[in-house]
């Protein structure tokens, strides 16, 4: 099924990496298991955003809202109702998708910066409600101690769960991107006017992309709750939205796996720089400026650029 769609070599590499990561937990300290799991959650969030930003060319400025909606939905379901756990896990992404449908329905009527601004104001509305509605969402305290089923009782088990869901999601995202729908989306990014002229319904495709991306953002939200067992309104704040945006650019937004790299770098930086100094955003800012000046294509884009001539050389030699 994957033949022809997936480059055999990078597929093998991905499978090898997946197996390696799956075997890792017994051999590394607990803290690193936690950090890795956090990286996976953030990666999925960044990947879902990149479907819109890198491949769709849309100014999705407030993606964190959907992450937060997913997380809050599952946390509320598990603390306030007696529904089975899996219903909560399913409800998270579906609620996020629904929020994406509603917000996206308004946003796709506008373009570029106006699209982004409308989304920020709609997203801030959601944030303000969550932030202020103490009785229902816990306001700025958030919800802590979300109960988890025995299957996910230990950190290592959560790690396996998160990793497997991440792998499945990335596979799905890859297939979506290589499908006719994905190609149309990229065509719309490159030239929306021409796409409209050849009869593509630009708005409908963009809305569908938003729905898909917010669904995956919702999954990331659920995984966050699985890992942290708590939610707080900062999950929906626009600063987080910009941070994920940066992860995409940092990793390389025109590559498939770039955002994963960007998320890994950002989370690792925050964790390890955070150990030594509380001024880690200062360091992130400096790194970002260096990146803008020296690596405009992102880390992954840069790596691919270096590797490409070599791969060609190797191919030439084989002939």
């Amino acid at each position, binding site marked *: 099924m994957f033949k022809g769609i997936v480059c055999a070599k990078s597929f093998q590499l991905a499978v090898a990496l997946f197996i390696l990561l799956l075997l890792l937990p017994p051999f590394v300290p607990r803290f690193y298991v936690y950090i890795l799991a956090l990286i996976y959650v953030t990666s999925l969030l960044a990947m879902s955003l990149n479907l819109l930003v890198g491949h769709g060319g849309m100014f999705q400025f407030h993606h964190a809202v959907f992450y937060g909606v997913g997380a809050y939905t599952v946390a509320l379901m598990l603390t306030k109702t007696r529904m089975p756990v899996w219903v909560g896990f399913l409800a998270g992404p579906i609620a996020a998708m629904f929020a994406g449908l509603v917000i996206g329905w*308004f946003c796709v*009527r*506008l373009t570029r*910066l*106006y699209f982004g*601004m*409308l989304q*920020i*104001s*709609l997203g*801030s*509305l959601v944030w*303000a*409600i969550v*932030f*202020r*509605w103490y009785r229902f969402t816990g306001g700025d305290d958030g919800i802590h101690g979300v109960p988890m089923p025995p299957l996910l009782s230990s950190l290592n088990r959560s790690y396996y769960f998160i990793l497997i869901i991440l792998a499945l999601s990335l596979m799905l995202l890859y297939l979506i991107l290589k499908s006719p729908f994905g190609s149309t989306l990229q065509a719309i990014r490159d030239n929306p006017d021409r796409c409209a002229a050849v009869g593509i319904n630009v708005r409908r495709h963009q809305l569908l992309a938003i729905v898909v991306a917010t669904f995956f953002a919702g999954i990331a939200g659920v995984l966050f709750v699985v890992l942290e067992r708590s939610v707080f309104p900062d999950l929906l*704040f*626009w*600063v987080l939205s*910009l941070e994920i*945006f*940066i992860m995409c*650019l940092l990793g390389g937004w025109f590559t498939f796996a770039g955002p994963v790299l960007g998320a890994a770098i950002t989370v690792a930086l925050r964790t390890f720089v955070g150990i030594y100094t*509380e*001024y880690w*955003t*200062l360091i*992130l*800012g*400096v790194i*970002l*400026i260096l990146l*803008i*000046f020296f690596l*405009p294509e992102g880390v992954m884009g840069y790596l691919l650029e270096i590797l490409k001539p070599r791969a060609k050389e190797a191919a030439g030699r084989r002939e």
Partner: protein
Amino acid sequence: MGVSYGAADLISQFLVGISRSMILFIVCAGLSFVLGVLRVPNIAHGSLYMIGAFATFSLSKVFAGSYGFWFALILAPLLVVLISLVAERALFCHLYQREHLMLLLFTFALSLIFGDLVKLVWGAEYRSVAAPDLLKGSVSMLGSSFPRYNLFLIFIGLGVATALWVFVNKTKIGKISRAAAVDREMVGMLGINVSWVFAAAFVIGCYLAGLGGALVAPTVSITLGMDHTLIIEAFLIVTIGGLGNMWGALVGSLIFGVTHSLGVLILPQFAIIFPYAAVVIVLLLRPKGLLKSVW
């Protein structure tokens, strides 16, 4: 709600809303000006506003006595100007040819750096600045009492609006910057150093951010994170006003400030929702903003 409000409360709340709008207007006019000339949504604008407020706190301590605030009101925005000029000439001016999103990211990086620098210099405690003696207390107007400082803000807002109108329409640099907003290449061809026009526009915009920060200082507790709340509001105001249109910033600020202060009367807990909802309604009815955008 069960609570009834008299007309006097309504009027006084309305005036408080307008005075808050004036601070928003001063900040947003700067943001809009930079947006119009440089085409960059400057995320660091909020951080400069925060620096303005913290600098006002420190300067009004340095110049103790009842005149401290007035000195701070003059000097704090100038400090912000200095910072922004350095940032623009050292880094930002090399990026003008680059993609929009990269410029946006650069200003975000600046805001991260400024935010942490403020934490480094002033710490994470809450600070407050006392209003000068002249503006303490309140005056009674139309049967309700109204704080003097807020009245002062309304006058300052009108003053800044007038000054900006004169600057943009009557001075040479104002006219050049308007021309550069429309067609920067043509302006360059006429022998004007566009790079310095951009620097001037950026610095003037940042001055307004600093001034807004200085003016807001006596009315709120100055704290880290005030940049985040402000910048999001400022972006929305500029968008509903029409990108780059200074009068749009005025209209947008009034909508934002007044809906918020009247929202306090209707649903105090969710007052913050009213301005956002107003923005959504405006954007749905007039997606390109109320007034003509320069883009």
